[in-house]
Every structure is written in C-alpha cells, then in structure tokens.
C-alpha cells in the first residue's frame, strides 16, 4: 500500500476546507478523511504484521511496528476529535465567523498531516521539519479563542517549542556528523543503527543531550514544560485531545527511536539520562498537580507526569520494560484524549474551567459528570483500566531490573498524582450542585456524545483485553527498539 496516502488525504481535505462550500460539507469531509486514514492505518498495520518487518514506500517513507502504532493512535484520535469538533466549534452566521471555522478545519487537517509525517518519514532532517510543522500548524488552533489568555498560551507554545526545535536541530546535525565520520550510509533510522564502525561516543553524547532537551521541550519534560499546561488548557477541547493525546506521543516516538542507537554506545549513559529526566518530570508534575485550580490544567499536568513515566520505562532498556512502555504509550494516548473530550463536555455544560465553581455534576449534568469521573479514574491509573496495567508492568519491570529506589519513587509519584486527580474530580462530580447560578443544564450536541462513546471504547477494552494485532504490533515495536 502507498504510504503517501496518509500525507495526501489530510492535505486534500485541508484544501477543500478553504473552498467556500457549506460548513457541513467541510465537517463531513474532515470526518471522512479521518475515517479513511484510520482504515488505511489498520491496513498498514496488517501489512506490517504479516511481513513482520518495515514496509517501504519510495525512498522517503516507511512504516514498521512502532510507526504503525503511532499512526493508528493519530488516526483514531483524529477521528474522535473531528466528531467532537462538529458540535463544539459552533456554526456561525457572520462571514468572519464562517471564515474562522474554515481556518480551524484547514489547520486541523494540516496538523494531522504533520503528525502522520513524523512516524512515516525516514530521513531525520525531514522529521525535524515535520516536528516544527506540528507546532506551527497547531499555533492558531491553540490561540483559536482569540482571547488574551489563548493568545498568551499560543505565544508561549510557539516560542518555547521552536526554541526547543532549534536546539534539537543542532543535535540532529551533530548526529549526522557522527554518522558521516563512521562511514558512508544514509541518515535514516536504519542507517544510524547499521553504521559500519561505531559512532564517536563524544559527539553522540552531546547530540543526544541536545535532542533530548530540544524535543523534550515539545514532549513537556521538566524544566521546559511551562508552555504545556497553558497551551493544553486554553486550546479548544478537541485540539487538546490531539495535543495531549498524540502530539506529545509522536515527538516522544523520535526519542524512543534513538534508543537502539544509544544502547550500542554504553559510554553515553543514555539510560541514566532517560530515567533521570523521566523521574524528574513525573515527580514535579505530581506535585504541581496538587495545586491546580483549572480542571483542564489538571489533565495537562497529568500528561507531563505520564510522559515522565514513559521516558523512565524506556530508559530501563529491557524487553519487558519495552512492552510496558509501548502499552503505556497506547493507553495514555487513548485515555488522555478521552479525558480532554470529557473536560470539553464539562466546559460545554457548566461554562467554567475553575474546579472550585463546579459541584455536583452527577446531578446537574449527568453525562458530563459520568464522562469526567470515568476519564479521571482511567488516567489516574485505577484498575481495571489500561493505564493501570501499563503502570503496573512498568513498576514490575523496574523492580525486576533492580532499580528499587527509582521505581519506588516513581510509584510514590503515581500514587500522589492519583490522589491529586481524584480529590479534585470527586469534588466536581459528587456533592450538592450550586443552586444559585439559575441556569438550567445545557443540552449536549449529539456529536459530543458520539465522540465520547467512541473514544471511551478502547479505554475500557484495552484494560480488559488486548486484541491480538495490537499485541503483535507492540511485540514488533518492543523487539525493534529494546533488542
């Protein structure tokens, strides 16, 4: 199958969104494009499983087990976010409003395009360009509300992540240099692993640290995480689902891809860097979680925490930890996108982001309340949800490799974050609703419910049982990265 279709379809839909067709057409085109990409992602996963190796398309694109997982995640969240957008991004009658909706859908599709490009591209230089594109295409989606706060968030987002990208670019160029010094060959993931002579550890060490810091900014690793809660709380909720659920994951994918290169050079001590950075992010985010007053920021900090957990697990460098990492990547993307859709539903129902002014959602807005408590339990890592199993297997892998103190700390941070999330959400969902606001509960759009139901299915399903194709993909990815 031609992998170019993943890049072609979103661009075509983005161009269609610019033509003055009725808005309903644009919305259904976006949804159809998303569904086609999801179908293609399933098809490409089948091909990857049956050949149990990478599938190539031309000299620029490829897809293997890890890439197929990322593409499936992007496509799935793309579909749920476009369904959710249907009712969330309101129809407008003024010409300026219509133009804004058009711009939203154009950028939405271009944003998807840039996220498909990252796992598909082979050349690191182009991957860097794709990473920059994800920021630039989503900048106006973050600032979509055009309020001073949204603009502040968008500005911080672009400035900090582009600064990170410049640092990562330096690292990627150094990596290219190291690869060139060790003999001829292409500057692709495969070419980096199979260099004729080992690459110079001195250069690779600096390159790795620059890439980790640079792309870590985009992933939301502490200390360059400050833009993340702002951007992920101010953006419209379907965009948050994409930002938090899959954008961070696609950038994390690049860091994961470095592992087979780094594990051949033990003097770089990349495992210590991974575990240290992961633990720091998880810890700082768990403490920051305790003092948020905005429920969208709550989930944003939880993203930072989960990125830390995943990075920690990746740094354990074992096949078992590899399974845990991949499982956690999948379950985080699914659950977090659901959480933001639930937060968007609550925002539609009550009209405020403040935790303190929301009480008794279970009675005032049952659907929003149920979705919120469901999402919160799932993301905080309560059994039997997928995140619980991921975290459990990571902790088990950490203990079995003898990292007792680090794993103990990680477990403590997970418990802290659990308490932080659950106390807030409990107060919002249960208890007596405020009677004095006088507004009746708003009716939710049908698209809103549909998106919640579709996004919720894998959250439950993955905790109870993992379908065989997903298991095979995880196995392929884990054996390719942590061999």
């Amino acid at each position: 199958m031609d992998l170019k279709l993943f890049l072609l379809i979103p661009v075509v839909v983005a161009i269609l969104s610019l033509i003055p067709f009725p808005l309903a057409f644009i919305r259904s085109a976006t949804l159809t494009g998303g569904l086609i990409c999801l179908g293609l992602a399933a098809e490409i996963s089948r091909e990857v499983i049956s050949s149990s190796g990478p599938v190539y398309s031309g000299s620029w694109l490829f897809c293997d087990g890890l890439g197929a997982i990322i593409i499936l995640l992007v496509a799935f969240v793309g579909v749920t976010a476009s369904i959710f957008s249907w009712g969330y991004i309101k129809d407008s009658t003024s010409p300026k409003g219509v133009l804004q909706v058009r711009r939203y859908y154009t950028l939405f599709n271009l944003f998807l395009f840039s996220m498909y490009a990252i796992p598909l591209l082979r050349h690191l230089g182009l991957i860097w360009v794709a990473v920059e594109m994800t920021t630039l295409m989503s900048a106006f989606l973050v600032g979509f509300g055009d309020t001073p706060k949204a603009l502040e968030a968008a500005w911080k987002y672009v400035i900090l992540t582009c600064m990170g990208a410049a640092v990562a670019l330096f690292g990627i160029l150094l990596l290219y240099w190291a690869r060139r010094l060790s003999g001829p060959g292409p500057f692709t993931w495969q070419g980096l692993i199979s260099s004729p002579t080992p690459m110079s550890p001195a250069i690779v060490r600096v390159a790795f640290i620059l890439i980790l810091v640079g792309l870590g900014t985009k992933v939301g690793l502490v200390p360059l995480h400050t833009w993340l809660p702002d951007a992920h709380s101010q953006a419209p909720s379907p965009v948050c689902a994409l930002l938090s659920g899959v954008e961070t994951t696609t950038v994390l994918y690049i860091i994961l891809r470095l592992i087979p290169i780094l594990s051949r050079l033990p003097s770089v001590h990349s495992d210590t860097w991974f575990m240290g950075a992961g633990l720091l992010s998880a810890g700082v985010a768990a403490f920051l979680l305790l003092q948020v007053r905005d429920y969208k920021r709550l989930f944003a900090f939880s993203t930072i925490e989960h990125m830390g957990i995943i990075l920690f697990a990746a740094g354990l460098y074992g096949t078992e930890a590899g399974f845990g990492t991949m499982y956690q990547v999948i379950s985080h993307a699914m659950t977090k996108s659901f959480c933001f859709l639930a937060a968007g539903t609550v925002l539609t129902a009550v009209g405020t982001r403040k935790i303190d002014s929301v009480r008794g959602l279970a009675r005032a807005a049952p659907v929003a309340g149920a979705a919120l408590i469901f999402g919160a339990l799932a993301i905080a890592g309560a059994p039997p949800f997928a995140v619980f199993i991921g975290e459990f297997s990571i902790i088990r892998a950490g203990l079995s490799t003898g990292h007792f103190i680090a794993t103990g700390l990680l477990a403590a941070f997970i418990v802290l974050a659990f308490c932080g999330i659950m106390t807030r959400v409990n107060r919002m969902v249960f208890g007596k609703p405020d009677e004095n606001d006088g507004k009746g509960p708003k009716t939710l759009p049908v698209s809103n419910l549909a998106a919640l139901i579709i996004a919720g299915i894998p959250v439950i399903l993955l905790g109870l049982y993992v379908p065989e194709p997903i298991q095979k993909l995880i196995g392929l990815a884990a054996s390719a990265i942590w061999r």
Partner: protein
Amino acid sequence: MTDQNTASFAITQANALTCGLFLLSSFGIVAARQVLASIRIFVLQSLFLAASALLLGIHHASLHLYLVSAITIVTKCCIIPYVLARLVGQEQYACRELSQALNIPFSLLVAMILSIFAYYIASPLLVAGGNVFARLNLPVGLAGLLLGALALGTRREAIPQVMGILGMENGAFLAGISIAPDLPLMAELAAAFDVLILAVVLGFLARHIHQSLGSTEVGLMADLKEE
C-alpha cells in the same frame, strides 16, 4: 606554496573572518536597543551565514552549498524582514528602548560566558573528527544557538524574541554547513520553508496580540500560572 594551497588558505581565513563577524552579530541580537536594530542585525547575521556557506561551497566545489547560501539570502535577508514589517506594522518598528529582563551590560556578560562555554563544549567534539572549517563553525554556531536562547529569555518584546529564535536556527545552520555539508537538498529546502512559516506564524500571532492587548510586550502577559 602552490596556487591551490594559497586559495585554500585564503578561503580558510575569509571563513574565519565571517565566523568572527557572525559571533559579533549574535552579541548584537542580545544587545540591540531597538526593534528595528535587532531585525537589521539578524539580516546581517544571515548574510554572514550565507557568506560562510558560499566560502565552504567554493572550497568543496559543491553546488549544494551555493544553493544553501542563495536560499539563506532570499528567505532570511529579504522575505522574512519584509513579511514581519508587513504583519507587525510601523508603530512597533518605531525606534524605542526595549524593555529587558536583564540590563544590557549584564546580558553581554552572560553572553560572553555562554560563548566560552560553547568553546568548552565543542573542543572535545573536534578531537573526534573535524576539518579546519568545523573547528570554527562548530563552536561559533553553538555560541549563536546559546546567545539566541539568551536573547529569547531576556527580551520582553515580541519581535526581538522572534529574532532570538531565528538567531538560534542560524547558529545551528552555521555549524551544519561545516559538519553536514552534504545533507539532502530536500531537507534544506524544507527547513527554509519551515523558517519562513515560523516567521509568518509568529508575525500573525504578534499582530493578534497587538490587536487584543494594544502592545506587543509579550513579557507582560502573565495571566496563565498557578495561584
């Protein structure tokens, strides 16, 4: 000394001069007192980057580096200043003192420490391999990256922050032309396009911020934080 050696010596010396001027312009981005000045210094810095790419192109006889040089001049010296001027409007361009988180003498002191740090980081890498060009371009490029980040951190005005980011990228490219001169053209073109979009996006955002806040002093925006 043969002719070829003389020519190669001349190119090396000219490249050394260009790198020195590049480093000086990086200091300029940190120290410029006016918006317009910081854009002009950025244009100068990009010219030095283009000149270095041209010199390396002559040395390696590589058409590729000529193209890099041409792309740099077209995008960074012509299109980006024009686009920013159109998007942001005259009043922000007007000459005025910029507000800074650190005062300028102190920023320059930090900038000096950062450049020494860049040499300190780069020297062990050059032991592992590196030609006569990498010896200069790599530490100067790294210094450009760090000084751009410093400008980004100390500035409170929108356009000088953008210049900080673009300066960081210039630093990365200055190192890149010496250590990765044969990067595929596709990647170079995509990167140039990307820098262009970056300028447009940030220009548009700055314009929106100006419309909604009445100023582009982004350092004043501090609504989003934990209480």
